[in-house]
């Protein structure tokens, strides 16, 4: 077992870090305030290969292995202070690009992957509905056979990238009698299709530069070529996407935690109270020691889950353990950083209050903490 990055991974990390610090952090505070998603920044990330990391070169991606993908996303999270942009890239990459690459037909891969990798196309994953979140099979969106294809009707909510997406991976019930496995199908639905409506965009607490909203499908006709992963294959495809998302998206949070840790160390070594640097107060130093412990443990869990993505048939358990630990560590770390910064941490100009707002959602998306505990318990036979 070797815990060191290899030469290629070190270079990858260093390049992405430098790119993110140089190109992605200008006006972050203002973009957050105004909820601005900048397509130019998306394009810059695409040029760096970030929108298609594991996709083979034949389809326009850099063709990284799954562990290197996580290392790249970790570096992006460290270097980029715009967590909304990082989140949007990960949602596009892990819940849309990866399933097309893994389960798409050759025609689908050739049609979508080059554009999704080079930044000309943005993708969204449309699973949640107003009446179904964690209980995904309660979904009401239906796809009924019609001519040589299907008619899709329904409303999807909490669609990350929904307001700006050019194509959506849409999950719909095709045969309710078959149940969760066999009864749900995923479709690649182009925004240009008649009946595809971009509905309300949500204002939210954090990740404000990542657009999220509702998509409404009113008699949207898709040909059978739009089926992704076969009729009835939607649930497995979704589970697979969640393995990638839980393993790799949360790598960005490891990078964020490391950046915040360094920021806390730098601040507490120079901020003086009672005649000495506040880092010399154990109450402060212990908080920072805990941050370090969480970063190190989180990184090991993330890298193990990501490493398993291409070595195991399912990393569901490892991904759930990693997702749960990282998200809860991230929230704790951001709150501790605010505490360490004291009153300044409460001010927008120090950026750590934004880190708290950005972190809270991590315990909700990709399956709540409670769902992750259910998954872990299930794998333990409980």
């Amino acid at each position: 077992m070797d815990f060191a990055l290899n030469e290629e991974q070190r270079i990858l990390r260093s390049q992405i870090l430098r790119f993110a610090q140089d190109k992605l952090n200008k006006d972050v505070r203002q973009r957050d305030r105004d909820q601005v998603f900048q397509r130019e920044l998306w394009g810059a990330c695409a040029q760096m290969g970030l929108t298609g990391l594991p996709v083979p070169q034949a389809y326009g991606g850099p063709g990284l292995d799954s562990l290197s993908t996580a290392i790249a996303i970790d570096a992006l999270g460290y270097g980029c202070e715009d967590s909304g942009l990082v989140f949007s890239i990960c949602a596009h990459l892990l819940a849309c690009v990866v399933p097309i690459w893994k389960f798409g037909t050759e025609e689908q891969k050739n049609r979508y992957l080059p554009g999704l990798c080079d930044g000309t196309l943005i993708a969204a994953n449309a699973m949640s509905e107003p009446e179904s979140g964690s209980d995904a099979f309660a979904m009401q969106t239906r796809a009924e056979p019609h001519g040589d294809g299907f008619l899709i009707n329904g409303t999807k909510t909490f669609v990350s990238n929904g307001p700006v997406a050019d194509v959506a991976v849409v999950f719909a019930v095709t045969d309710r009698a078959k149940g969760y496995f066999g009864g749900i199908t995923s479709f690649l639905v182009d925004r240009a299709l008649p009946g595809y409506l971009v509905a309300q965009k949500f204002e939210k607490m954090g990740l404000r530069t990542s657009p999220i909203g509702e998509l409404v499908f009113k008699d949207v006709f898709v040909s059978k070529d739009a089926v992704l992963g076969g009729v009835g294959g939607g649930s497995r495809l979704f589970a697979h996407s969640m393995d990638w998302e839980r393993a790799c998206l949360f790598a960005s949070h490891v990078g964020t935690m490391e950046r915040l840790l360094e920021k806390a160390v730098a601040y507490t070594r120079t901020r003086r109270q009672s005649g000495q640097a506040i880092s010399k107060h154990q109450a402060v130093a212990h908080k920072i020691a805990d941050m370090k412990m969480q970063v190190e443990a989180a990184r090991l869990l993330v890298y193990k889950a990501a490493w398993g993505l291409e070595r195991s048939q399912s990393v569901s358990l490892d991904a759930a353990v990693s997702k749960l630990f990282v998200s809860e560590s991230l929230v704790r770390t951001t709150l501790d950083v605010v505490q360490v910064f004291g009153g300044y941490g409460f001010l927008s100009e120090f950026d750590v209050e934004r880190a708290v707002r950005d972190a809270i959602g991590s315990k909700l998306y990709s399956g709540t903490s409670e769902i992750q505990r259910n998954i872990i318990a299930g794998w333990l036979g409980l």
Partner: protein
Amino acid sequence: MNTTQIRTMTRDFILKEFLPGERPENLTDSTELISGGILDSLATLKLVTYLEKSCGIEIAPDELVPENLNSIGHIADFVQSKQAST
């Protein structure tokens, strides 16, 4: 691996993982696993992961359907056909 071996290993796995304490004779080749409530979504994924690993097969998303998985008999036939095709 013949169908008898696949049935045996599948039965042993289901009894151990999802029906602890159940009498083995109550789990027959035709007991309904999904529609009978023995396999929920997570249990189904767990079983599929086990079959893929133990039998050296890869199950496509659209093969994960009740027709292939709703009983030990269905599973054995399905796994054997997958092994034959690979």
